[in-house]
């Protein structure tokens, strides 16, 4: 049964919600364990869909295909890692409540629905389930001032983005008379052949769809919320917001753009090109000026989204698979990046500034080495994994046949050098500066999660073949 992962996760989340009512604060770890278990079980159930034929369910509302299955596997794995990073952190900060895990599960469910949605309605439902869970999680630390402020911004901006998206969908519905993805695609081609003047209306809809997607991705110029939210949210929530949801948004973008509006490909390609270049340039340049590590990671994330768009805008199967590879690797790197901050914090101490990392190498060489892997991977230095998706998107854009593709690639790589500068600043603080960074005393699971994240940078970097092949296979047909 192709929909089993979603159904199971829904049932599990509801069951855990009830169980959690009867669990005392001191036994909250039980909720954590159950949440992890249900993520793992969903992951396993999802594995059964690998390699299965594409199936469309519920009158075309829901689809299970290769892309959805692979994205789900990626999101669930990332979510499990995020929860591993979270437990100790929220425990120390006394908001170790069941809701945290339950909201995370509902967010996961929302993401699964998003990438499998096959009509505007299901996609939007998934998106809202995800977003509402995230708003609540950002605000979860009620006693701090930053958290609720960030949640407020996130909520207002998110609502605006949803509005834009719905407006675009309604435009397209107005032209084609359908909200089902394949029908819209077919009708659009038909209508454009009969009435070429309707292209303007479709393009108009596409503009709003792209704007909505760009908001959710945090691409320039729709990026203003990103640094504030990542900065203000509890760090473990920042790790969540910045990682798995981006994978889901990629799934949504694939459904809404190439699968729905291929007939106005050239128009949204141009929009994405602008977003891409602005994100790469402004993201990288702004990150240089940050001294707060969470804000730096936020801007670096914006730049990464720019590189990711380089694949998406290519408009070829190879470009889509490159973008998919990029977003999966980015999600992992982003969790690892915020994980760096999480291992640095302890009860009563929030790691905020890059200066907090000074001298870490002397006392915790293992953590320092892992952090170097993560930073160098983000900078795109081979053989760490961050290099390969950059290579793939550049290959995609050079091979796309777009005019000026060479210059797009050249700008992208030149700004990667700017990017290297601020990642190196962190490495410099860790290895070269004298400082007071203490010996890290992290909980066992946090340490394990961090080592997994750090080592995966190297291992996946040395053997990117399997993941690349999986991504390529999705778009091969």
């Amino acid at each position, binding site marked *: 049964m192709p929909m089993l992962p979603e159904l199971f996760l829904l049932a599990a989340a509801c069951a855990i919600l009830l169980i959690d009512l009867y669990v005392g604060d001191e036994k909250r770890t039980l909720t954590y364990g159950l949440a992890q278990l249900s993520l793992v079980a969903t992951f396993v159930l999802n594995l059964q869909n690998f390699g299965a034929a594409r199936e469309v369910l519920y009158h075309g509302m829901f689809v299970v295909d290769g892309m959805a299955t692979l994205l789900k596997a990626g999101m669930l794995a990332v979510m499990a890692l995020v929860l591993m990073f979270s437990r100790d952190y929220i425990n120390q900060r006394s908001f170790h409540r069941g809701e945290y895990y339950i909201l995370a599960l509902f967010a996961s469910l929302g993401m699964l629905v998003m990438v499998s949605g096959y009509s505007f309605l299901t996609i939007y439902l998934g998106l809202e389930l995800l977003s509402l869970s995230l708003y609540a999680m950002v605000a979860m630390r009620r006693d701090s001032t930053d958290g609720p402020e960030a949640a407020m911004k996130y909520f207002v901006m998110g609502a605006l983005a949803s509005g834009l998206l719905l407006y675009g969908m309604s435009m397209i519905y107005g032209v084609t008379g359908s909200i089902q993805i394949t029908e819209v695609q077919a009708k659009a081609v038909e209508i454009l052949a009969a009435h070429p003047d309707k292209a303007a209306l479709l393009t108009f809809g596409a503009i709003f769809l792209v704007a909505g997607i760009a908001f959710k991705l945090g691409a320039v110029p729709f990026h203003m919320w990103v640094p504030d939210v990542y900065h203000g949210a509890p760090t473990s929530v920042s790790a969540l917001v910045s990682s798995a949801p981006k994978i889901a948004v990629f799934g949504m973008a694939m459904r809404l753009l190439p699968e729905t509006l291929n007939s106005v490909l050239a128009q949204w390609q141009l929009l994405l090109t602008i977003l891409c270049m602005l994100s790469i340039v402004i993201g990288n340049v702004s990150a240089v000026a940050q001294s707060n590590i969470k804000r730096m990671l936020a801007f670096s994330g914006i730049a990464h989204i720019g590189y990711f768009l380089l694949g998406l805008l290519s408009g070829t199967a190879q470009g889509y698979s490159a973008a998919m590879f990029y977003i999966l690797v980015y999600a992992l790197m982003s969790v690892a990046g915020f994980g760096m901050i999480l291992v640095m914090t302890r009860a009563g101490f929030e790691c905020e500034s890059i200066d907090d990392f000074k001298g870490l190498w002397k006392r915790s060489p293992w953590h320092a080495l892992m952090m170097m892997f993560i930073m160098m991977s983000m900078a795109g230095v081979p*053989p760490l994994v961050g290099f390969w998706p950059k290579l793939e998107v550049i290959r995609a854009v050079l091979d796309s046949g777009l005019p000026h593709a060479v210059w797009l690639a050249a700008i992208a790589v030149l700004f990667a*050098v700017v990017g290297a500068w601020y990642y190196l600043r962190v490495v*410099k603080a860790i290895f070269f500066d004298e400082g007071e960074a203490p010996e890290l005393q992290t909980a066992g699971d946090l340490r394990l999660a961090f080592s997994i994240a750090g080592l995966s940078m190297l291992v996946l970097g040395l053997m990117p073949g399997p993941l690349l092949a999986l991504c390529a296979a999705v778009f091969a047909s």
Partner: protein
Amino acid sequence: MTNLLSLLIWLPIAGGLAVLFGTGERNTAASKWLSLGIALATFGLCIPLWTGFDTTTAAMQYVEHANWIRLGNIEINYALGVDGFAMPLIALTSFTTVLVVLAGWEVIEKRVSHYMAAFLVMTGLMNGVFAATDAMLFYVFWEFMLIPMFLIIGIWGGPNRVYATLKFFLYTFLGSVLMLVALIYMGIKGGSFAIEAMHKLPLEMGPQTLIFIAFFLAFAVKVPMFPVHTWLPDAHVEAPTGGSVVLAAIMLKMGTYGFLRFNLPITPDASADLANIIIALSLIAVVYIGLVALVQKDMKKLIAYSSIAHMGFVTLGFFIVFKLVGANTHAALGFQGALVQMISHGFVSAALFLCVGVMYDRMHSRMIGDYGGVANSMPKFAAFFMLFAMANAGLPGTAGFVGEFMVIVAAFKANFWYAFLASVSLITGAAYTLWMYKRVVFGEVANKHVAELPDLNKREFLILAVLAVMTLALGLYPKALTTVMEPSVQHLIGCGVQSKLQTVVEGVCR
């Protein structure tokens, strides 16, 4: 052995990890001995590499090939092989590593095991750069190598080390990213990342010029050529002695090796077209940087500038080949000279940096003004230093003479003024080296610290003696080296640098 090259790459890397996680900081003595053992074993592997090398062919030898990654329809292969250009450089790298391990023996006080591990890992990566025959594999090694070097300068370097190492990293990174675009472009065009396939890839003049520029930036930064040389004096001065030695002896050679492997054969027409500019930049390096070296007060900086000037000879030797069309013997001579210069500079600059290191360990100063009359307290050292200074100035009989002489002779055939300007370096080179030598070693004993200097200990004596033997051997019998390189040089001149634009490409080469 069929996988000799793999061993040369992975043995030092595995050894470095063993030092890092095995013996580690708890037992530094064991870490040092283990590192020395690994370095010697790696160097030992070069003996069968050299003796088993077939000097009659320009083809790749010790070839290894395995699929690594598939990108759509292009494969990235773990493909290794060496020809007459790469093999001596691998031997030089492995040789230098032994010296570096020995040089750091007592001097490095903090985190010895991390220091040794970083150098061992870097040795493997540098061997990988020279052995890779797949462009993407080459690029991976090329970039990866930056990380250990970045840490070595940044952690164990001098007072201004952070500035120097960031500059080093960013300069090199900036240079190489455009190369990546060029490599991907050609990979798509030819459907393969094999360097040999890129040699044969037909390219129009427009793309050739852009690709040439992309490669040129990557390699010119590394050589370094005027005007992108400014990172080198900083990096050299701040790096620990071992770091300076590896930078000068090996890393600079990667730039010129890149010219040989990529620029000349892949973009021969653009190379010919732009040869004038490169020759001009080389001559500026030789003359102007030679004059800059003259006024340095810091010994390491002086040697760094002298390195830039000497590397100018190498690029000069490569690019005058385009001015010697029809004079193949002279073109070959220029090439051979440049190649010999690469190896000899590896020995001489390494030796000079080690000499400065010997003094720095005792006095904690690199300033020429702080010394004077060192010969009185350190006679053995003064003798070695003399030999290396003479070699740096290009004294006949030493390694420094052979390469420069060959390049100058070839340059004469191309253009009198090239040769004239290049010969100026014989004067400036002698001036800055010997003047430094005079101020440091001769004269009155400058202060009581100098008077109390202990002479070389056994370890230092051994290092310098080995280098002295190599310098003299290469100076007196360069044929051992040129024989190895000869077929590759002939192949490059006969095929590699021939135009790709002509429609008739079915020659002996293809």
